[in-house]
């Protein structure tokens, strides 16, 4: 127990890297989810096809392979080496964006057909229809699964340890275990708590956004556990 302060300070050094990787990954995930999710609903076959290749390509391979590919193979092909943290954020975003695209597509598709018809009857332009009528309703549907996706992303950020990003997991493995081998349980106990707390923060923020989005529609937020739909594979 007397090593606790030093353990905390070493893990504290890794915390910003974990937080930056997770936040960066989440931002990229949101952009790609909406971009690819909307393209999956495009009327043009070619656009849908190309987007499908992205989505299935990233959902069908291992995240570790994607990480190693971008970090070790891409530089050989394009002659430009990414900083580990940037490569990591790119993979977290690209990978989870592919899952998020399906969430966005499903949520938009779940908006009742009458809503489209009503918007057309009011002679809203296609862009207005999407922005004013469809997306606000779809947003409420997609927030709970996106919460799960972001927590998955937080957990995945630990694989950045494999390409030398000094985030929490790597600090524990490379700095603490070799130096404080007797405190294995304490070290991992603290690491587990760090990830639990970060996950709790994500959930708290997402709940707040869920309430805001539901209020905007004049609805009360309903939150049921949809375990079967949580399965993001």
């Amino acid at each position, binding site marked *: 127990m007397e090593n606790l302060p030093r353990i905390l300070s070493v893990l504290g050094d890794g915390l910003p890297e974990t937080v930056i990787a997770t936040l960066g990954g989440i931002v990229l995930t949101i952009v790609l989810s909406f971009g690819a999710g909307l393209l999956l609903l495009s009327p043009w076959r070619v656009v849908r096809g190309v987007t499908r290749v992205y989505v299935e390509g990233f959902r069908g391979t291992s995240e570790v*392979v994607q990480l190693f590919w971008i970090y070790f193979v891409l530089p050989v092909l394009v002659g430009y080496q990414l900083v580990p943290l940037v490569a990591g954020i790119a993979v977290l975003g690209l990978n989870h964006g592919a899952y998020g695209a399906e969430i966005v597509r499903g949520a938009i598709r779940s908006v009742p057909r009458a809503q489209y018809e009503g918007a057309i009857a009011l002679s809203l332009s296609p862009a207005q229809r999407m922005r004013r009528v469809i997306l606000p309703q779809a947003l409420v549907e997609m927030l709970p699964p996106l919460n799960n996706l972001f927590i998955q992303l937080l957990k995945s950020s630990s694989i950045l340890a494999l390409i030398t990003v000094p985030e929490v997991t790597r600090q524990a493995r490379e700095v603490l275990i070799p130096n404080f081998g007797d405190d294995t349980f304490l070290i991992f106990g603290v690491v587990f708590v760090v990830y639990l707390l970060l996950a709790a923060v994500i959930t708290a923020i997402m709940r707040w956004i869920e309430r805001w989005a539901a209020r905007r529609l004049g609805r009360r937020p309903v939150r049921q556990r949809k375990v079967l739909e949580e*399965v993001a594979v």
Partner: protein
Amino acid sequence: MPLWDWSYAFSILPDLLLALVTTIEITVLGSVVALLLGLVIAVLRRARIPVLDQVLWAFVELVRSTPLLVQVFFLFFALPRFGIELSAFVIGVLALGVHYATYTSEVYRAGIDAVPQGQWEAATALSLPRSRVWTGVVLPQAIPRVLPALGNYVISMFKEVPLLLAIGVVEVVNEARELGSETFRYVEPYTIAGVLFLLLSYPASLLVRRLERRRVSA
């Protein structure tokens, strides 16, 4: 030197395929652990035994909310301190199995909750013993319903096996890394590794989707 060398690619293919077999072995064994342990957790939690119920809840939440890689390291470094010396392969199977058991336990729970209350009442009215209620009435209705979700988790476990390279398990990606370090050519090994994953997991996910649709239309 060309960016992609076909003769090199073919020369490393057998080694990668061999490592792929290891990956599949770990997936199959891990799935057995996950599917059985998850069912045990779900059934035990349904019994709502005080203390045990809270312990199981805390365990499931802890394992579900923290990274698999950290859990892998934890087992790798903590088990020897109890005098338990296991190979990296076995630790990998255990870590994946227990991690995914917490996911599958939630899936089973959803399936069990979806069995109509009347089925429980009828089973009680017939005064079936507790074990028969589970094996004869509830589970045969609950499990088929959740098969697609369980299938998805098996596929996603397959894709997480490469994490075990961190403790020295020689699965596909680790093999690719070793092959690459011999020749300093990484393009072919990592690309082939990615393609191998896609070749297996994409058809598998199509299969699961078909199963899903069949259940919806049935």
